């Protein structure tokens, strides 16, 4: 259908003809421009082209990943009428929501801010936190906790130090001010992230079922309000910026990085929750995140099956002379779009006046199915809302197994001529591993985050999972949350690596005494137009989906971040997983730290025997190769069920899962708690062809637990009955040593030697001269 040309834009700059060059500059393909013409029945205006370019970017449209994401389970099979039902599914709204009983629910989601953080680490990370908090309270939920998952290059480079300092300070600046505790996180350092750090932030909120709000524009004639901060020129086109590879010129994209105002966000949270608590006042609400006013208007109209008209003259503006292109594409932070019940305008205006915030009546809901934008009395954009959302292009990209996998998966220590460790080598390796920043204490990071505000934090950062007490009406519930993903495993075997991310996350929760409930994921990959990258993406998604189905942990939402490449190449595939679990009783809360001298140390899951993809191989031999550790979902489930059962039976004094660095790193970390306890381990009874793989291999499905001597037999018996290997490998002592008997000789370390390096490694690397 042909349409009449729109009148000239009041700003002559916007009346340029749409050339192939302009299309390319907007990150659109020539065939996508043709589709736009079909949708519009003629050439788009420049404002419209800008609108399409952000809505059809990967960030907003998931055009390259949507078919893959359909493989995720979005429902919980084991849900009952009282617990575990998915109330808002992944992809439906800004965040998924799951029932946690007694009429209460939780909303949670993870989102990336990788590209902005690479350019401007402080503001990039800060606004990442702000954006994910808005995704949660826009659902009607009170944000109660934050976590983050960070990846950097090796900490020996000045660039990485600058990025780490900026990102952590940015997260702290925003999260601390807004008053939501950052209770957990993970940080890895690996060359593949050099120059392209990953900053994934998660927020979780609580709400009653009747408080759930949707991003829908319904009800012909209902007024559309713009609330929060004024619109400026910052963050112009951020969504399309996030869908490009980083290059040397990227720093000239700096205006595409937004600036955050956590104080404004705090006011917006309070005002929005207050407004949403008024029965029937809010018809729909959506935050203005990526693609700002554009995304919020067309998505609410599309979801509501309605239309929307807005008048840009009524949009609060921070600077004079902004044209329609700039206003529609601005990504100024801390703004929301609210659709209010007609006739109740005064009520919303009163709430926002109380909080001294803008609430501008900018438009109305229509029934035309179109998004119509006016500026200075002229129609500057008129687009079918669904063309921007449901009818955005979808691509099935070509996938090709990367050639490097042949070499890496065929590698073996023997074939690679790797001599096994002798005792002296093993003695030297442990302190080295413990002080590598990936394994070392992250205290330098989390002490900058307020992790205690709201006075509900039960287990502070530094254990396997963060644990938080939620007050839900008159009842209390305890939840655990953990993030995981070892990109190295995903590089070596994408499908298996993604499954490991999932099972390790679940294991962390179980070690904390929690039953896993639901998951959110952040898929961080390189350029999907490269078949090898798309292969990694496809395989990782398949691995996650399989593990989710097996454990009946549905995906309730997530985010995709592609084009994570620097001139050095793509990052390791990093499908970050975050799972929330529930703890039945406060008495089940379990930490990783040994507590009792004389307690028995039991290794559940059998002796580790694989070296592929390990930190040991990387650090000691300079190799990133081998097959990723094997995953046996059924064995993993047996282990986790057993452990949870023993925790509930009150027999487990502490539990810590084996992950990066393997058995001895795990054992050491158990001793780095508040007390000063040592351990005497005897590994001679374990079947171990290679000493290096036994001590430092990263075989999955292993947990160390400590139990009181009187409970050791019962735990061993339960393990036998469950078919889980359980080896009593020693005891907790009062000595200031970790001593380990091996078939190749005894090993011993003073705890202070191990602990000092582990505790101070990141802090030492980040020391600022002259500041105490």
């Amino acid at each position, binding site marked *: 259908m042909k349409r009449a040309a729109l009148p000239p834009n009041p700003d002559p700059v916007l009346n340029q003809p749409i050339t192939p060059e302009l299309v390319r500059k907007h990150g659109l393909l020539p065939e996508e421009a043709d589709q736009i013409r079909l949708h519009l029945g003629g050439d788009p205006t420049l404002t419209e082209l800008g609108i399409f370019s952000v809505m059809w970017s990967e960030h907003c449209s998931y055009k390259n990943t949507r078919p893959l994401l359909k493989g995720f389970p979005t429902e919980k099979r084991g849900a009952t009428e009282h617990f575990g039902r998915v109330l808002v599914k992944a992809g439906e709204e800004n965040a998924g929501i799951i029932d946690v009983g007694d009429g209460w629910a939780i909303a949670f989601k993870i989102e990336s801010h990788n590209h902005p953080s690479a350019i401007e680490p402080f503001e990039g990370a800060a606004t990442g936190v702000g954006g994910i908090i808005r995704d949660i309270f826009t659902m009607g939920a009170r944000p109660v906790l934050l976590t983050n998952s960070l990846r950097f290059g090796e900490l020996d480079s000045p660039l990485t130090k600058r990025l780490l300092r900026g990102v952590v*300070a940015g997260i*702290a600046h925003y999260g*601390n*001010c*807004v*008053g939501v505790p950052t209770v957990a996180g993970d940080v890895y350092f690996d060359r593949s992230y050099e120059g392209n750090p990953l900053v994934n932030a998660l927020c979780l909120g609580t709400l009653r079922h009747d408080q759930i709000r949707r991003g829908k524009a319904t009800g012909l004639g209902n007024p559309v309000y713009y609330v929060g901060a004024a619109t400026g020129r910052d963050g112009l086109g951020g969504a399309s910026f996030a869908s490009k590879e980083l290059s040397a010129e990227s720093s000239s994209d700096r205006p595409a990085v937004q600036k955050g*105002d*956590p*104080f*404004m966000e*705090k*006011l917006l949270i309070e005002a929005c929750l207050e407004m949403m608590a008024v029965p029937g006042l809010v018809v729909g609400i959506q935050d203005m995140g990526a693609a700002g006013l554009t995304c919020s208007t067309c998505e609410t109209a599309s979801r509501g099956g309605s239309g929307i008209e807005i008048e840009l003259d009524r949009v609060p503006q921070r600077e004079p002379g902004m044209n329609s292109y700039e206003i529609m594409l601005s990504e100024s932070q801390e703004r929301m779009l609210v659709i209010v019940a007609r006739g109740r305008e005064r009520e919303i205006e009163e709430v926002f006046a109380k*909080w*001294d915030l803008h609430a501008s009546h900018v438009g109305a809901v229509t029934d035309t199915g179109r998004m119509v934008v006016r500026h200075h009395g002229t129609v500057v954009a008129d687009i079918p809302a669904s063309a921007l959302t449901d009818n955005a292009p979808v691509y099935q990209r070509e996938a090709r197994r990367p050639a490097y996998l042949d070499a890496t998966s065929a590698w073996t220590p023997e074939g690679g001529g790797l001599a096994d460790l002798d005792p002296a080598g093993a003695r030297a390796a442990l302190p080295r591993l413990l002080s590598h920043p990936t394994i070392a204490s992250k205290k330098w990071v*989390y*002490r*900058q*985050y*307020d*992790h*205690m*505000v*709201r*006075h509900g934090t*039960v287990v502070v950062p530094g254990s396997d999972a963060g644990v938080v*007490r939620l007050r839900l009406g008159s009842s209390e519930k305890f939840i655990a949350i953990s993030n995981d993903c070892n990109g190295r495993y995903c590089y070596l075997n994408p499908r298996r690596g993604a499954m490991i991310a999932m099972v390790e996350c679940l294991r962390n929760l179980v070690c904390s005494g929690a039953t896993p409930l639901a998951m959110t994921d952040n898929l961080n990959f390189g350029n999907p137009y490269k078949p090898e990258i798309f292969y990694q993406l496809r395989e990782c998604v398949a691995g996650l989906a399989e593990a989710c189905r097996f454990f009946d942990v549905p995906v309730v939402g997530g985010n995709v971040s592609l084009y994570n490449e620097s001139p050095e190449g793509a990052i390791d595939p990093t499908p970050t997983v975050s799972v929330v679990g529930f703890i039945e009783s*406060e008495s089940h*809360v379990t930490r990783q730290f040994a507590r009792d001298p004389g307690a028995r140390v039991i290794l559940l899951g059998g002796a580790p025997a694989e070296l592929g993809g390990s930190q040991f191989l990387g650090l000691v031999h300079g190799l990133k190769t081998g097959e990723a550790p094997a995953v046996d979902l059924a064995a993993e489930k047996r282990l986790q069920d057993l452990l949870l059962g023993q925790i509930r039976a009150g027999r487990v004094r502490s539990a810590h899962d084996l992950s990066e660095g393997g058995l001895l790193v795990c054992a050491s970390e158990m001793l780095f708690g508040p007390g000063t306890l040592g351990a005497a381990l005897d590994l001679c009874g374990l079947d171990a062809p290679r000493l290096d793989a036994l001590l430092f291999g990263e075989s999955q499905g292993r947990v160390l637990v400590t139990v009181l001597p009187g409970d050791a037999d019962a735990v061993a018996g339960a393990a036998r009955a469950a078919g889980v290997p359980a080896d009593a490998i020693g005891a907790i002592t009062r000595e200031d040593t970790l001593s380990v008997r091996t078939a190749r000789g005894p090993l011993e370390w003073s705890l202070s030697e191990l602990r000092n390096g582990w505790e101070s490694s990141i802090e030492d690397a980040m020391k*600022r001269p002259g*500041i*105490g």
Partner: protein
Amino acid sequence: MTISVLQFPGSNCDQDAFQLFASGLGLPTRFVWHKDTTLGETDLVVVPGGFAYGDYLRCGAIARFSPVMGAVREYAEKGGLVLGICNGFQILCEAGLLPGALIRNSSLEYRCMTCDLVVQDAGPVFNTRTLGKRIRLPIGHGEGNYRIDEAGKHRLEANRQIILRYLDNPNGSLDGIAGVRNEEGNVFGMMPHPDRAFERFHPSADGLAVARAVLSVRFPGMVRKSA
């Protein structure tokens, strides 16, 4: 007895302070909005932690001008009890209700951790019998570095106005000062958070003891009741 917790835009420990008194001590507690110009009947005003007005300027520099602070000043001048926690301490210093100032931590970074504190002999107005000599309280601040001039410090010491000192100074505060009172003994401020130390799972229950130490001289009954 009524406890009043102020709410500024940007207060974010208001709920924590509320719960310390309401559920921790079981006292009637209510909020007072920053635009209010009167406090009503109250026995203790708590200025809670957070980032009042965003604290983009000096911490507390804007909050001191908010309407409710006029009422707080009047109340304090008449001898009413006031307790500032974290940002509340900063606001009371900015308002001139407490001596000294709080500047950026010497590390130039925010610090969230649990600290050991040495309770000082601050005279009968701060009832240390309920506290003992050492307590543990969490801190969470970027600007908790307490400063005062030499003469001011001498006055603090001579009048026993220092109530808490850090055992391991986390922020560079002069002489490890973590909390002070005014000369009259009715206005108290501290950077550590008693409002993060009262639940079963908190690092300690010393927040309750701190609250009692402030209240118990005026209200001796509550110590006997809940100690």
